[in-house]
């Protein structure tokens, strides 16, 4: 009995050690634990053997072996506790080597008479006598066992959650076991010279094993909960079967009155039955796996299907590819003859149809499709499960055995349909359930592919629209260019056409006014002069309009040269002097030493004429002075030199309101004292001057105060005067 127990306990230890090691060989916690378990298993045997040994010599030998293993036991315990739950060693090599040497020494000493010098048999029990090296052995125990427990307690205190729970059980189990063993082996044997209690050792081991097993199942110690659970189940099954057999046999024998079988036969029969019972299931599975391909049944592995579908769903975003991949996988795994994915639009009409296996002309009619959709929306349809009805007939017509609805976020997007299986069997509950589980994922993937399609389509449409719009713009632009040219041509031709008769009018009038056709009476002269001035204004207006038109279309050509502004101003003054004299106002040019400028001389002349002309129009008393000064302005590219021309008059001045509008097209003085009618002016003069000045790289402006006169100014780029000889 005790032997059986011992073997059983040892067996458990070694099996536990094996499982733990195999679970995770690379993890040092696992390795050290299994090492501990192995040594424990061996130690139990060694602990028992002295009791059944044939001679004193053998007894002593087994005792010594016992101590040898005990030394290693303490060491392995310590190592395990130190490393757990880390996966790496964490020792320094030196420390490890030193401790190893020490333990080796102690364990080897145990085999010598130095630890146990002798053993004597008294009253049927073996009584060993300790030798001189016993204290060393004790040191080993204390060091490693004690140290181990100290570590264990410390770790327990510091640990949290799962680890804490695990450590708790290991701690309690180890504590119980070791204290009991110590009490048994050490105290009882050595001090009290009693070896009878040794037979109980296996029980203590079992206590430890139980605690460890509990930690494994409840708290996932070493992650072996599944193994333990299965093992326990297996053991229970075996036990149950054995009990049933024995009970059955005894009942049979007691009822039939036959002689009971001898124990050995009974045991062998129990054993055989258990073998058959336990191997039935795996054997059946193996045979099935061999015959299935022959009988075409094909074992449906849900996991395989799920894995393949999960792999293919994110692999492509192209609708056709996706649908066909899905169908292919399902049809291959479940062995279906044909399948199809039908996608619908918002109105539940078929918009896309992907099929593998279905004949092309097996298209579903609109009405039938609607009725199928209606039914399918409520849940999947399995042909065999339906009662006979016109609807079932519809499904039969198209050869549909399975219909799954596809919906995303509550909206229906289509159907996945399948014909019957290749083998002709009906679909198993498992197959239908697994497929149903997959439908939402499939629907989502399809919906994504549809969205992608839409994005692509939208992109194309967008590109097309942009292209069309761009084209339209180009055409419009071309038209505008043409119109612009027509306008320019028109303006050029029109202004020329207008000027021709006006030239006639003006020239002949001049002849008459200058008495070339005879003396002109005063009154006639008066009338004719008014007409003459009107003609001049007309010509001026036409010229201005032509100028503006050219400025706005950018067709002004500037011929720039370096010239002297002062001289030019004087030239203009000379030309306009007669008019000024008429009005009894002065025209002065302040001669200043300034740099020459680089600009279109004719255009600048136009500007000066314009400014002076304006002045002449509005000045009643006093006159106009042209002043010059040099300006240095900070530009983006650095400092640039300019010449500023100021046309200062003593006229009535201009209000702030008018100031702003003066340089605009047709900007006139509404608030002026002098009416426009008598003085003429097209309203374009300043606008043209501004445009010209700016074209030449300068700026134009006006300073004025009502009642104090005005200062028109403009700037032009200066040219550094070189020393001329």
């Amino acid at each position: 009995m005790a032997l059986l127990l011992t073997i059983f306990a040892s067996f458990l230890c070694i099996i536990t050690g094996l499982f733990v090691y195999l679970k995770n060989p690379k993890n040092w916690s696992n390795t050290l634990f299994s090492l501990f378990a192995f040594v424990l298993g061996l130690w139990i045997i060694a602990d028992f053997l002295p009791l059944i040994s044939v001679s004193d010599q053998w007894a002593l030998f087994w005792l010594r072996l016992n101590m040898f293993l005990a030394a290693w036991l303490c060491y392995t315990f310590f190592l395990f506790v130190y490393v757990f739950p880390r996966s790496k060693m964490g020792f320094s090599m030196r420390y490890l080597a030193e401790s190893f040497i020490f333990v080796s020494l102690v364990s080897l000493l145990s085999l010598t008479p130095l630890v146990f010098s002798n053993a004597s048999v008294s009253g049927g029990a073996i009584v060993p006598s300790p030798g001189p090296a016993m204290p060393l052995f004790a040191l080993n125990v204390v060091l490693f066992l004690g140290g181990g427990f100290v570590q264990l307690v410390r770790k327990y205190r510091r640990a949290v959650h799962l680890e804490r729970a695990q450590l708790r059980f290991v701690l309690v189990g180890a504590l119980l076991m070791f204290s009991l063993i110590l009490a048994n082996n050490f105290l009882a044997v050595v001090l009290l010279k009693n070896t009878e209690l040794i037979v109980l050792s296996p029980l203590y081991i079992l206590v430890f094993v139980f605690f460890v097993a509990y930690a494994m199942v409840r708290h996932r110690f070493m992650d072996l909960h599944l193994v333990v659970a299965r093992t326990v189940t297996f053991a229970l099954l075996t036990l149950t079967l054995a009990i049933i057999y024995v009970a059955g046999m005894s009942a049979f024998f007691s009822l039939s009155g036959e002689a009971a079988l001898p124990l050995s036969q009974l045991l062998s029969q129990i054993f055989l039955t258990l073998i058959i019972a336990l191997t039935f299931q795996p054997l059946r599975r193996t045979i099935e796996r061999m015959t299935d391909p022959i009988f075409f049944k094909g074992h449906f592995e849900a996991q395989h299907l799920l894995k393949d579908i999960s792999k293919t769903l994110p692999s492509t975003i192209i609708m056709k590819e996706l649908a066909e991949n899905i169908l292919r996988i399902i049809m291959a795994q479940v062995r279906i003859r044909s399948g199809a994915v039908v996608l619908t639009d918002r109105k539940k009409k078929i918009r896309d149809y992907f099929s593998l296996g279905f004949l092309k002309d097996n298209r579903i009619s609109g009405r039938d499709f609607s009725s199928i959709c209606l039914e399918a929306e409520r849940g999947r349809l399995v042909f065999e499960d339906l009662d006979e009805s016109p609807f079932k007939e519809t499904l039969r017509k198209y050869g549909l055995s399975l219909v799954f609805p596809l919906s995303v976020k509550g909206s229906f997007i289509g159907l996945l349909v399948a014909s019957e299986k290749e083998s002709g069997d009906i679909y198993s509950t498992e197959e239908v359930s697994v497929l149903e589980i997959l439908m939402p994922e499939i629907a989502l993937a399809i919906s994504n592919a549809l969205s992608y399609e839409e994005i692509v389509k939208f992109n194309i449409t967008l590109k097309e629209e942009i292209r069309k719009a761009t084209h339209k713009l180009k055409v419009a632009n071309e038209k505008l260019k043409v119109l612009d040219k027509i306008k320019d041509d028109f303006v050029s031709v029109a202004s020329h056409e207008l000027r021709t008769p006006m030239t006639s009018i003006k020239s002949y009038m001049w002849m008459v006014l200058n008495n070339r056709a005879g003396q002109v009476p005063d009154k006639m002269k008066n009338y004719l002069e008014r007409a003459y001035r009107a003609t001049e204004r007309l010509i001026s207006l036409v010229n201005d309009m032509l100028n503006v038109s050219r400025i706005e279309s950018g067709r002004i050509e500037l011929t720039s040269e370096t010239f002297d502004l002062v001289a030019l101003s004087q030239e203009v003054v000379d030309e306009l002097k007669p008019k000024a004299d008429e009005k009894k106002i002065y025209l002065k040019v302040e001669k200043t030493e300034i740099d020459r400028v680089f600009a279109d001389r004719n255009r600048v002349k136009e500007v000066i004429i314009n400014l002076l002309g304006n002045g002449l129009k509005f000045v009643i008393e006093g006159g106009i002075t042209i002043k010059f000064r040099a300006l240095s302005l900070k530009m983006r590219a650095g400092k640039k030199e300019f010449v500023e021309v100021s046309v200062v008059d003593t006229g009535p001045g201009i209000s702030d309101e008018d100031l702003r509008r003066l340089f605009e097209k047709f900007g006139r003085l509404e608030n002026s004292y002098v009416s426009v009618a008598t003085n003429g002016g097209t309203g374009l003069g300043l606008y043209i001057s501004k445009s010209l000045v700016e074209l030449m790289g300068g700026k134009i402006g006006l300073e004025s105060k009502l009642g104090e006169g005005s200062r028109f100014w403009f700037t032009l780029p200066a040219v550094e005067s070189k020393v001329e000889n």
Partner: protein
Amino acid sequence: MNGKKLLIVEDEQDIRELYAEILRDEGYEVTEAWDGEVGLKTALSGRFDIILLDVMLPKVDGLRILKEIKKKPELSKIPIVLLTNLGADAVIKEAFTLGAEAYVIKSEYTPDQVINEVNKVFTQETAA
């Protein structure tokens, strides 16, 4: 009479006749041409001391006539005054490139200013 032979090529009748009249009064012997074709032919055949040339002419435009005249070595020395209403810088620039001497803006120049411009040609010549 100052003995100078003058050709005026101008299609606008009023202007042509007016200028012809005032130039005759000034003493020039004036020949009139009313379109480009006639003008060119006349210019090439006759011996003129000065030619007044309008730009916008029917049949052959003024600038072409200018070019043709300047091509002929015996005629290239004749001063040519451009008559224009355009005031377009491009045209005037081109005319000067081709060898025109001066220009008159018809709508701006009063008759006596026209006379001045014509006389200036000869006074400058003698000065040079």
